[in-house]
């Protein structure tokens, strides 16, 4: 029974294999798809928790697929940031799966419903599970070409999911999304080619040990970064994001905004701060910080101007992504683990809060048939839990304590002041103030019930539409309280490099 040992590294293939198999099963068996999907997502969440336990007892691990060692074979590895991202995906994915069930059964039970809704549900489950497998593969993989493959899996399934709603606007947006994502991944692939040409290596740990800092490596890094920035939708490459996210079905918007974008960001961050940390110059870090600052301000201004709820939430994603990039120039003042902690807190808090927000917006859209902000007065009377979830998620977006975003912003502010870069402080404060404006602008309409207002009687009411959103919003709010525990996991550090066979280097 050696395979069942707790310290066996082969456990880390579970989060990749299980959703992939379940996705294929969902294609084969058209009944019981929800049962298959739910059990796969549950196993995925348990596997993420198990990998965290394994990391705490045994430290970071490497696993060579099929027994092929590093320079030729593909390796997976777990470390602090990877397992936390797995946990984020597991928790958010579980809630989104429950919500999607409620969402689709609401639309299918609707008397005006058609076969189209049935079909949407049929294709949703396999695509979502495929996307989940791709994301988990991205977080765990340690081979740069394998990372390209996971990026493509994510891109293909995300674009298909975005097209599911079948509206002309959604199809067009998803076509553009697919092309942008293809452009991004081809640029990334060209970067891999340059890297392979100058180093002859694909394994990230081996690349990190390399001291070579020639023009080939720098060109490769530039190409890969541009490709990933396009996929992460940093301003000014965010043009595809708002239409694609706002026109998709509500569970799909939640997946795209909360998880898909984090995948490419995680990869970018890992490349900049772990693999090529020696090639990064201060100027490059400042450029990234500047783009991040632009994203915070531009996204917030656009969010304040929107008339539609879902578009507003989509632009707020553009804005919130900026905070992740403002952490770049501050890395000179802090060490690696501290920068990781900012980014992980921000990413986790945003994933939970933004999916809760998109779910609430979707529930409101389902019940009222539109999402024009100015006509949504007094929603509280009909959907109190949804409005509560929206409000709590809004608190996280503003970065008030005790949310995870507060911890991240606090760390950002203190390092910006400690390293005498006060201009970032202004941007962060301005961004939070504008977040307050665009959140309150909507909440005030939801909560105020004008005189003589008769609340709409709602025929359908599914608990699955409301409670997952509230649970995610509460998690994002309370994330700050478990901060020491998360920091403890992150501090488990990176893998001991002596484990890699040195004879394999060419």
């Amino acid at each position, binding site marked *: 029974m050696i395979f069942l040992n707790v310290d066996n590294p082969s456990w880390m293939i579970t989060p990749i294999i299980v959703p992939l198999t379940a996705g294929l099963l969902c294609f084969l068996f058209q009944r019981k798809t929800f049962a298959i999907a739910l059990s796969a997502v549950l196993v995925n969440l348990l596997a993420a928790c198990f990998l965290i336990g394994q990391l705490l007892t045994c430290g970071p691990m490497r696993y060579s697929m099929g027994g092929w060692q590093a320079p030729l074979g593909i390796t997976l590895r777990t470390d602090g940031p990877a397992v936390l991202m797995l946990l984020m995906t597991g928790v958010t994915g579980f809630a989104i799966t429950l919500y999607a069930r409620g969402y689709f059964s609401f639309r299918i039970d609707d008397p005006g419903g058609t076969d189209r809704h049935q079909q949407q549900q049929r294709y949703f489950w396999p695509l979502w599970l495929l996307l989940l497998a791709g994301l988990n593969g991205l977080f765990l993989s340690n081979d740069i070409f394998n990372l390209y493959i996971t990026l493509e899996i994510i891109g293909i399934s995300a674009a298909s999911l975005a*097209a599911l709603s079948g509206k002309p606007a959604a199809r067009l947006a998803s076509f553009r999304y697919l092309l942008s994502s293809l452009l991004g991944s*081809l640029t990334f692939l060209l970067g891999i080619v340059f890297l392979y040409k100058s180093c002859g290596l694909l394994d990230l740990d081996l690349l990190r040990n390399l001291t070579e800092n020639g023009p080939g490596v720098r060109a490769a890094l530039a190409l890969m970064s541009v490709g990933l920035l396009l996929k992460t939708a940093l301003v000014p490459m965010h043009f595809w994001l708002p239409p694609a996210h706002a026109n998709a079905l509500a569970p799909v918007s939640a997946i795209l905004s909360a998880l898909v974008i984090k995948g490419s960001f995680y990869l970018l961050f890992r490349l900049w701060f772990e693999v090529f940390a020696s090639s990064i110059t201060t100027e490059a870090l400042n450029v990234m910080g500047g783009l991040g600052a632009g994203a915070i301000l531009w996204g917030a201004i656009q969010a304040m101007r929107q008339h539609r709820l879902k578009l507003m939430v989509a632009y707020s994603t553009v804005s919130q992504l900026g905070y992740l990039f403002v952490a770049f120039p501050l890395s000179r003042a802090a060490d690696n683990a501290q920068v990781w902690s900012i980014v992980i807190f921000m990413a986790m808090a945003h994933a939970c809060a933004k999916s809760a927000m998109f779910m609430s917006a979707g529930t409101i859209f389902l019940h009222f048939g539109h999402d024009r902000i100015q006509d949504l007065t007094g929603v509280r009377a009909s959907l109190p839990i949804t409005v509560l979830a929206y409000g709590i998620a809004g608190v996280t977006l503003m970065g008030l304590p005790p949310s995870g975003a507060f911890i991240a912003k606090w760390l950002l502010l203190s390092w910006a002041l400690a390293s005498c870069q006060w201009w970032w402080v202004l941007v962060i404060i301005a961004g939070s103030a504008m977040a307050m404006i665009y959140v309150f602008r909507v909440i005030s309409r939801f909560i105020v019930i004008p005189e003589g207002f008769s609340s709409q009687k709602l025929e359908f009411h599914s608990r699955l539409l409301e409670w997952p959103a509230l649970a995610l919003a509460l998690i994002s709010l309370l994330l700050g309280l478990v901060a020491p525990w998360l920091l403890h996991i992150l501090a488990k550090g990176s893998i001991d490099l002596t484990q890699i066979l040195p004879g394999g280097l060419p």
Partner: protein
Amino acid sequence: MITTLLYSMTGLILFGMGLFTLIVHSHPLRKILAVNVMSTGVFLILIATAYTPLGQGEVDPVPHAMVLTGIVVSVSVTALALILACRVQETSNLDLLKKKTVPETAKESTT
């Protein structure tokens, strides 16, 4: 050396041509073909890195494996892009595609 350089430069030029077409032209089919030309360019550079003159050592097999995988990805992505382009044309007229700005309003007629 000169052979590798020649093939690599051709690959880069193909990549650049594809990128130009992808950005400049608005017709969906042209965009899809442009992406294909770009990926062909990348594959050409990748194959060129594996080249060793005859009798001077082994040919590196890893780039070949990468190109094979890349071709599979490229074929499936092209299929998806083509079907999406067809669906876009079914439901909307071409005028929508020619516009530079994406209609940002979420249509209300879904439910």
